[in-house]
């Protein structure tokens, strides 16, 4: 079952990647990133069955980081929205040359 879990994890990861690349809505991109994180978490949990509890611990940490990231990320999105009246990432490209 490990192989299937890992393949599922890979599939979820790739779908998340796709989401990050093709979507413009910052929130959806954010969700896709969470999806990638989840895919990795799944791999960790599946492997922890075979390597020890550390995999689960790592998932725990990843979740904490995800929570922190969500809080800050959403705050950023809110303040961007306040300024541009949109969350379309094409519209804020101040990082451009």
């Amino acid at each position, binding site marked *: 079952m490990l192989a299937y879990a890992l393949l599922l994890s890979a599939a979820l990861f790739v779908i998340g990647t796709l989401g*990050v*690349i*093709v979507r413009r809505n*910052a929130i959806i991109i954010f969700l896709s990133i969470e999806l990638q994180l989840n895919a990795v978490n799944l791999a960790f949990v599946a492997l922890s069955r075979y390597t020890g509890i550390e995999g689960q611990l790592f998932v725990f940490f990843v979740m904490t980081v995800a929570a922190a990231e969500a809080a800050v990320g959403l705050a950023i999105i809110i303040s961007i929205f306040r300024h541009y009246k949109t969350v379309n*990432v*094409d519209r804020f*490209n*101040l*990082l451009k*040359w």
Partner: protein
Amino acid sequence: MALAASMPGPHLPVQEVAHWEPVLPGLIVLLPLLGFVANGILALRAAARSSAALRAGTDWDPFAGPARPRTHTLPTWIGPGVMFVAFVLALWNFAGLYGAELHDPVVVRYWTWIVTGNLQIDAAIQLDQLSMIMMLVVTGVGFLIHVFSVGYMKDDTGYPRYFAYLNLFVFFMLVLVMGAGYAMMFIGWEGVGLCSYLLIGYWFTDREKSDAGKKAFIVNRIGDLGFLLAMFLLFQAFGTLDFGPIFEGAEGRLAAGGATVTAITLLLMLGAAGKSAQVPLHVWLPDAMAGPTPVSALIHAATMVTAGVYMVARSSVLYALAPTSQAVVAGVGVLTALLAATIALQQHDIKKVLAYSTVSQLGFMFLGAGVGAFTAAIFHLMTHAFFKALLFLGAGAVIHAMHHALHKADSHEDAQDMRNMGGLKDRMRITWVVMWVATLAIAGIWPLAGFFSKDEIIWYTAAWAGAPSNPFGTLYTVYWLVALVTAMLTAFYMTRLMVITFHGQSRVDRNARPHLHEAPRVMTVPLVILAVLSVFGGWVNVPEPLAESFLGLFGALPMSEWLHHWLEPVTHDAAAIQTAALGEPVYGAPLVGGGEFAWALASTLAAAVVVLAALRALGGRKYVAAARDTAVPGGLRGILANKWYFDEAFDAGIVRPVLAASRWCWKVVDTVLIDGFVNFVGNFTRLAGWTVSLFQTGQANTYAFVLTLGVLLVLGAAVFL
């Protein structure tokens, strides 16, 4: 030294103790540093007030008020105070060491300073007979000069700064002479160089004077390079820079007369030549007279410039192993002595005369060190410290008086030019007397200090010239003859100085004459003390052959060969090596034979004759004041007046080519090649950056895409490779 070993003199009754603990040796070094810090703080406060006044658009005159500000009163006590305590401590330690029969130096380690690879440098000081003599000279003469400075610098706005520098100098000088290794010595070496620079350029608003400071600094760097290279070689050969292991292991590790030891000693000599103003690196010392006169007395006559002699004496073991280097050292010394003495004949500035005299005397010391008479070199160093400090301080008193008087008379004539003086003896009795004492001492008139020390150097030159295995015997004979001539020249130019300055008609500005008067007590007291030392200082080392004759007052001069015995633990090894290599010195003149007594008698008589002749010849001459003395001397006198064209030669041979090369480097190498390359790199980077920046779309999706691409590559590599 064979002489000392074969002819032990009567020892003074001493209480012998096997073990000796130095008393607060670190404090001797530390006290001047503390003085520097205290005076430095005062100087900073004074500078703050001065700059605040400048911002407000006025000048701050610290002496305008009814009382001197505290920044200008405290250094009076701090500066000489720390010196006095240090001198007392040094005396105390000297007394302790005197009572001890000590053959090994006492090394006090404070902390490990640098450890890197095999190199370990400790902050350690070494107390032995040699460093003790140097400590006494530095702190003793230093103290007197500090006291003198209180009077001399009284009306200078930079009063606290002056004492801060002076204290700092003494600190570094003590580190130099007390350091227990070449590394510590080098710190002191560089430190005194720095202080020398600071003090020469003390009146830094005067362009000429700050240039003189720079010149001294730069010329010294050349010598320091030699010192550094010598240290590298020493480290390569011994794996350490501490004196102890180097001198103990030198004989075993270095082949006598070999290339390594010759290279080391020659490089050390280069360093010493720089610091001690030997030909051709002597050019900075006369210019260094731009500094305040007490500075000239302390740094450029009594202590710092003798550091080279100290170093050669300290490294005596190494020099004994390298006879070629010794010949070079002696040759440089004697050449310097001769050239400087000749130049001194044609100088008009009173301090310049003394400066060349100093260079000349340093040459004598190197001659002594070069021929293996290390004790004699140190002996001459010590007596020279006394009478040359006295001469400078006396000149200082004269300049002080002249300056004061000319200032009162609103005259702009040069206060240092002897042609503007004359007849001062009536107005400055004490100065006149003590200056004559010093002049007779330096001229080598019996029984003053210079007689014993200089005579001993000349005597040893002759003795080693006659050593059976000395390959440079003939050369040493030439040295001896030149030294004799130079000694006569010394007597002549010093008498000339005295005559022009103190005797004859007064050429001082008519309006200024009434204002001329003797220096205050605070200046004359050190003069008198130094005069006493100049008289009796030579008695600590009356040569054995003279001791029982009338030149030694039939044994009444108490301390026959005392310095020899005192320094024997330090110089013993070198003497043994030298005797083994060259054979026993022959105590007699190489050309005509004769005992030391006869030559000594002849020497002092010759000196006396020269002095009297000069008095007669020069006393009757009419001199003209500087403003009207427009005659350009020709021939040899012209050459001498122009100092053998050393500066011009350096200018043409080194400075101008370097400047031309620099300009070429600037115009061609820098502007065209380097700038071109740098600009090319910059432009290329900009172009490349602009190209790459096209990828920087500012859109998160693009970045994610490229990121994924990269991950894909890494993953693919990991999976498939």
